[in-house]
């Protein structure tokens, strides 16, 4: 397997290792699903409007025509039943990719995910593993208000038995799915709504990528910025801004939210002695808290300053753009936090 973990826009890299094609995050996902379905008959896609509508974020457009309604399966609005059907079919030899339109609606399927998918293997003494992949859109930024803008990655990352991924780059959008499908256990993939339209270069020989480690997206010696999914871009922007004032920021993309790759985080913090965690989720109880706690436990004596967090405001996401943006981590707030931590 090729496993290139690189900055999110590989076009920014001077000499790409291999020929690459410019593509979007959405298109990378679609091609990844296509290739998985071509490679393995057991793989099928199931969810609301994945077929005739083409996917609510247009990810699966064209797949129905290519693979037919058995393998690109439109479901009624029955989140619990079709997620459960994914679990059952995984138990019986299929490799389902279940699309839950957005994490907001996944609340309706949580019982199946937590009480069945995540528990069956352990509870059955190792007899029944669940090779299921669930994809869902997450996050705010599209002005779709309080019921359509949740970032609940932290909830899923709390559950033993699940693996939780957050592809933030084109290459991860393409490469995480095959790894998730090869995994014998349930994997949840969070696709941030603001990423679908982002573009970058995808190496022509791109393939599966590891799903057990974080990636250093930018190196720096003064402060570690830790982000994932939708906030990686703003965090890299913040790092650029910090560079102009002489602060070298190292940027870590968590990539895998469960199990967390503590080693990569701690290694960086031991070097920079300072850290800021960026998380779009509501601050209290967000994943950033777990990361902070792990740094406390693993690198306390290496810290020169308290680790800080830049998170979503603790408010149901409001509709108007100015309020919505105010509720989300911004490059400016990341820069400010990094400066404060760096004492600069």
């Amino acid at each position, binding site marked *: 397997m090729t496993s290139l973990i690189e900055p999110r826009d590989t076009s920014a890299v001077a000499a790409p290792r291999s020929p690459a094609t410019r593509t979007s995050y959405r298109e990378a996902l679609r091609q990844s699903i296509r290739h998985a379905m071509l490679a393995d008959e057991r793989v099928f896609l199931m969810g609301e409007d994945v077929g005739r509508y083409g996917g609510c974020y247009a990810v699966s457009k064209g797949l129905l025509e290519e693979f037919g309604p058995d393998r690109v399966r439109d479901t009624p609005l029955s989140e619990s039943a079709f997620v459960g059907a994914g679990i059952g079919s995984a138990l019986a030899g299929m490799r389902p990719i279940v699309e839950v339109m957005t994490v907001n609606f996944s609340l309706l399927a949580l019982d199946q995910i937590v009480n069945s998918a995540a528990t069956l293997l352990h509870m059955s003494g190792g007899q029944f593993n669940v090779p299921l992949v669930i994809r869902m859109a997450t996050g705010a930024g599209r002005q779709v208000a*309080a019921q359509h803008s949740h970032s609940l990655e932290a909830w899923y990352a709390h559950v033993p038995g699940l693996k939780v991924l957050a592809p933030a780059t084109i290459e991860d959008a393409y490469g995480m799915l095959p790894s998730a499908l090869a995994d014998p256990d349930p994997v949840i993939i969070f696709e941030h709504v603001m990423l679908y339209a982002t573009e970058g270069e995808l190496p022509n020989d791109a393939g599966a990528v590891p799903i057990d480690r974080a990636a250093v997206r930018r190196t720096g010696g003064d402060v570690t910025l830790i982000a994932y999914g939708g906030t990686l871009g703003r965090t890299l922007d913040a790092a650029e801004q910090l560079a102009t004032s002489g602060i070298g920021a190292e940027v870590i993309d968590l990539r895998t939210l469960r199990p967390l790759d503590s080693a990569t985080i701690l290694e960086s913090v031991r070097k920079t002695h300072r850290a800021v965690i960026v998380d779009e989720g509501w601050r209290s109880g967000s994943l950033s808290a777990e990361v902070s706690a792990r740094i406390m436990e693993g690198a306390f004596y290496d810290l020169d300053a308290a680790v800080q967090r830049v998170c979503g405001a603790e408010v149901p996401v409001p509709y*108007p753009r100015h309020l919505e943006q105010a509720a989300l981590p911004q490059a400016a707030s990341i820069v400010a936090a990094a400066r404060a931590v760096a004492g600069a």
Partner: protein
Amino acid sequence: MSAISALPNGTATEEASHALQLLRQMTRIRRFEERCGELYKQEKIRGFLHLYIGEEAIAVGVMQALTPDDAIVATYREHGHALVRGVSARAIMAEMYGKQEGCSGGRGGSMHLFDAETRFYGGNAIVAGGLPLALGLALADKLQRRARVTACFFGDGAVAEGEFHETLNLASLWRLPVLFCCENNLYAMGTALARAQAETNLALKASSYRIPAWDLDGMDVEAVEHAAREAAAAVRAGEGPYFLELRTYRFRAHSMFDPELYRERSEVEEWKKRCPIANYVLSLKQRGLLDDAALATIESDVAREVDDAVAFAESGTWEPLETLTRFVYSDTQPSP
């Protein structure tokens, strides 16, 4: 459905003025939403926008059966319901702009219209999410022995959700005063009803909960009104919930993002021939209840109202960032 009662008794003039009133209300929705579509293209309205165009007869017809004391629960496709219920076009348009003069203070936008004064409980963007809420509103009325009706609107897509099932059973079991109004426009986003339901006769499904259920032509405002009045009267009288399946069609895309890959243009055109407004105009003219002058008056009144709403929204103000977290909890907290 069974035979339904006539319109409220009255003179011919009253009948005429009531009919014009129905037409006016449908026209208000149509013109208001056409403007919304334009404003969306101008990026004045953002986020999701779901137009009700084609389905106006339902909101207008059902709302005739409700009194100010009744409650309404609706979906993200609820501009029409709010308008007819009496939320001002100004407050709705300002809400779509996200201005603090909006009916939800600008925080909700198109999908989350709320208005305490008219007992308009949203504006729910979770499909079927409003049904349990309606159950609760009705339960409170029953417990407090108030003869009120809660009208709950939802789409054909909601019928597949577990919350639909749980709610219908409970409403029937507890004989709660809910008027369920299923707006069956044949599609849930791109999923045709027949691809979502093993049993496509939704009224039949509802009767399996022992709820009286009628299927109706949702393009015929008077038919809807008649049925709604009869059903609401029964609900109000304590007979328990009623279910109306209102057959209709959305003329526009599901939302502004929808490329409409899933249906033929010709199907849409066929349904447009059944336009609830155009056909009502025709029928009223045939019945001698409407002439061109009266129609023009309605159109110009409505145009003025919509213009005024847009102007109001345009001149509205943005909520200051300082109050972002206000109303996460109530302002008044009991002293511990």
